[in-house]
């Protein structure tokens, strides 16, 4: 009988403890996943989800505890061992080689060789076949650098499948996806489990967790709070388990009162990295004390718009004015001097230096300001005090200002960026995907911070693929499609469906044919 039950489980982790120096990331965690189910793992930022999965995948050795795969006790000492046991993991942060093609990435380290040479044609054919059987559409010959995040995600999953994985771990796969892409992914995962595979899914989107998974395990502060069937759970109940107290979902919106114009873009045009037109005739104004949100499917010019506004990409045509200063084509330091604070979307490429300490990251942009430097010398004492204060205020889970950013969990890295940019008292905030990878509690906190800034009279331009975020925060909602602003909507009255239509270019096409 006992053997029967054991055989039912694809994964059993028993009494796992994992410490990083003085910090206990996993505390006596027991975690079991039934064969053929989608098992969600949820918890706050820094709760230890990624660490637990890294232990399972052989990236970290636990300090104590044991692991069983398909009922057999195993010692997973490296990812190779894990792969040999039929495990596959799609990491929270991409691990693809940008300069190689999709097929080359998928077969990296296990190339199909004929006569001592890599047989590209067979690899491409194999990827096509895999892509067809799994329903994950990709072009095997494209170079990864040129892919959208959604396609990159699919490549990561194909890579895992190509290695014969029967148990697939996905660490926050939907954080970068649009809701539509997310739904497609879940349909694919359902297909996997129908074929007898097992899926472990980490996510901060509780609605999708409840929708897609069979069982949910909640971690808090490194320990398991509970494992329950998804059926019968509610978002509120899950949130309470995660945070340890009832969470006020606060989806109610508040309105701002717009003041004088702070940022004005007039007929801005710009090109992307390949020299193709990315922004066409974009005009917009953001007033003091208002939040203007830009919704749109990722890749419709939002990236370029943010870069142009932040002084990281020169417009090819048009005028820009921030706080009365002409900033078209001005470099980032000038734009920052004119009053910009900026939370970038690709924050871990651009928003932090992962090697450096939190303290050093907090300093960026202010290394020459009188607050933190004197006669060209940095006042590290003050920087440290500021960092310590921000760690407290933004609830960054860390060992202190000297800890390196790379030791932080994904969501806590995000908070470092927010802390730095929100605390500078600037009149204009450019915020791109502020809550990617951030847990629900912290998301509420960030939304509150954004609204507090607005109440202080800060002008805010918000770019987000999360529609509910746009609708909750925005005073005015603009929709971007193929480099153009195609609609201005009133977030108080508009419906999600209506926004969706504009995002797919409905109004654009109408305008074009009229």
């Amino acid at each position, binding site marked *: 009988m006992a053997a029967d039950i054991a055989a039912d489980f694809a994964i059993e982790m028993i009494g796992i403890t994992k410490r990083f120096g003085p910090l206990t990331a996993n505390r006596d965690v027991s975690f079991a996943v039934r064969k053929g189910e989608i098992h969600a793992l949820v918890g706050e930022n820094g709760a230890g989800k990624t660490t637990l999965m890294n232990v399972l995948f052989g990236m970290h050795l636990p300090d104590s*505890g044991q692991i069983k795969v398909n009922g057999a006790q195993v010692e997973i000492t490296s990812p190779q061992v894990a792969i040999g046991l039929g495990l596959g993991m799609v990491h*929270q*942060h991409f691990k693809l080689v940008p300069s190689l093609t999709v097929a080359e990435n998928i077969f990296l380290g296990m190339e199909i060789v004929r006569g001592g040479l890599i047989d590209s044609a067979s690899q491409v054919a194999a990827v096509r076949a895999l892509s067809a059987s799994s329903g994950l559409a990709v072009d095997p010959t494209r170079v990864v650098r040129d892919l959208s995040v959604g396609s990159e995600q699919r490549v990561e999953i194909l890579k895992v499948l190509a290695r014969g994985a029967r148990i697939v771990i996905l660490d926050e796969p939907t954080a970068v996806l649009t809701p539509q892409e997310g739904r497609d992914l879940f349909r694919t995962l359902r297909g996997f489990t129908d074929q007898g595979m097992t899926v472990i899914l980490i996510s901060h989107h509780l609605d999708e967790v409840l929708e897609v998974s069979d069982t949910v395990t909640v971690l808090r502060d490194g320990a398991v709070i509970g494992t329950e069937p998804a059926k019968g759970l509610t978002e509120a109940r899950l949130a309470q388990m995660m945070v340890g107290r009832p969470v006020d979902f606060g989806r109610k919106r508040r309105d701002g009162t717009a003041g004088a114009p702070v940022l004005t873009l007039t007929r801005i045009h710009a090109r992307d990295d390949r020299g193709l037109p990315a922004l066409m005739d974009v005009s917009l104004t953001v007033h003091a004390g208002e939040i203007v949100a830009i919704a749109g499917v990722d890749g419709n010019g939002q990236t370029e718009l943010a870069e142009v506004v932040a002084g990281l990409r020169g417009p090819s045509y048009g005028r820009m004015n921030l706080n009365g200063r002409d900033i078209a084509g001005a470099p980032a330091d000038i734009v920052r001097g004119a009053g910009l604070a900026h939370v970038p979307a690709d924050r871990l490429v651009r928003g932090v230096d992962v090697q*450096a300490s939190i303290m050093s990251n907090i300093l960026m942009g202010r290394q020459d300001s009188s607050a933190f430097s004197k006669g060209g010398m940095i006042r590290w004492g003050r920087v440290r005090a500021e960092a310590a204060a921000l760690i407290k205020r933004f609830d960054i889970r860390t060992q202190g200002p000297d800890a390196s950013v*790379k030791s932080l969990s994904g969501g806590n890295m995000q908070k470092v960026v927010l802390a730095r940019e929100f605390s500078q008292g600037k009149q204009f905030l450019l915020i791109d995907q502020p809550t990617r990878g951030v847990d629900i509690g912290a998301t509420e906190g960030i939304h509150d911070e954004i609204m507090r800034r607005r109440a202080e009279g800060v002008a805010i331009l918000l770019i987000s693929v999360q529609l509910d975020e746009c609708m909750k925060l925005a005073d005015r909602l603009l929709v971007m499609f193929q480099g153009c602003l195609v609609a201005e909507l009133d977030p108080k009255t508009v419906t999600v469906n209506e926004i969706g239509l504009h995002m797919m270019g409905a109004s654009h096409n109408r305008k074009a044919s009229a």
Partner: protein
Amino acid sequence: MTDIPLARPERHVPVWAQGLIGQMLALLIALAGGAVIIWLVGESPLHVYEVLLRGALGSAENVAGSLLQATPIIVCGVAACVALRGGLFNIGVEGQLYVGGFAAAWVGFTLNLPAGLHVVVGLGAGMLAGALWIILPAIMRARFNANEVVSTILMNYVAVLLTSYLTIAVFKRPGGWSETAPIAQTAYLPQLMDGSRVNLGLIIGLALALGLYLFLRYTGAGYAVSTMGSNPKFAAYGGVRVKRNIVAVLLTSGAIGGLAGGIETLGVHRRFMEGFAPGFGFDGVIAALLANGNPLGVVVAALFFGALRKGSLLMEVETGASREIITVIQALIILCVSAQILIRRRGGISGEKRWKF
């Protein structure tokens, strides 16, 4: 249920110590590899290393000799280190050393200036020449993103051949070897002690290394440079003028490379000779790599390489092993250090360039 603990927790070693252990390991492997080669040429590795050590540190004179050899490597190492910390590779230190050495010598044997001033102008000319020598690679890198590794290497050949040409065809001392006229006494870089040519250059090198260390650690400009080195996109986002800094960093690096040449000609040779400083520039680059871009570490690595060079002289006299053994050991060091960087990149998130969010 029996609990079989996986009792193999990863040990927690501070980051700086991890680096140090890694470099030491690289050194050991290189020395071991050198030993194998010595053994293959039919010598006893132990004996050869013993002679090497004696040659380098066996007497006060030998120590002074090692310091003399280390001096240009320290300065060249600082030059390479400046670039490295800004995320750039100046492999052209060798070339800058040559043109800097020639420019300083030219000031020495052409101009007529009072004692102290003559040295200052000579070294200044060396720095200017070094900076000019890297200006093209610097601008091409900043403007067109042209790989500075290739362009600075190419400039090396031009520098060596150009100074050769100038020495033989234009400024050759009548009747002498391929060398220029000697510099005026007023241009001599003061020596630190009698009986050895160890000179002020050593102090200059140490001061530069310390200065660079403090600059990177405590100044806003140094912060901008080192952040640019570890994540240029982050630096640009934060308002650092990356292109301007690339040019500034490379010119500074080139100027220090030129200074190394000036120190050699004004302090040691007191003229410019064809092939006067073989490989010092490259040794400097290796020292900077071995030190992982830490200026104080550069000093240690340079002292080590200086000692190797000095010790190899005696080794060649007393044993059948050739001086080229030293080159082999250095090559092995480079190999190990690069392998180590690759290994470090593989594990953990530290080496990843792209992030999902």
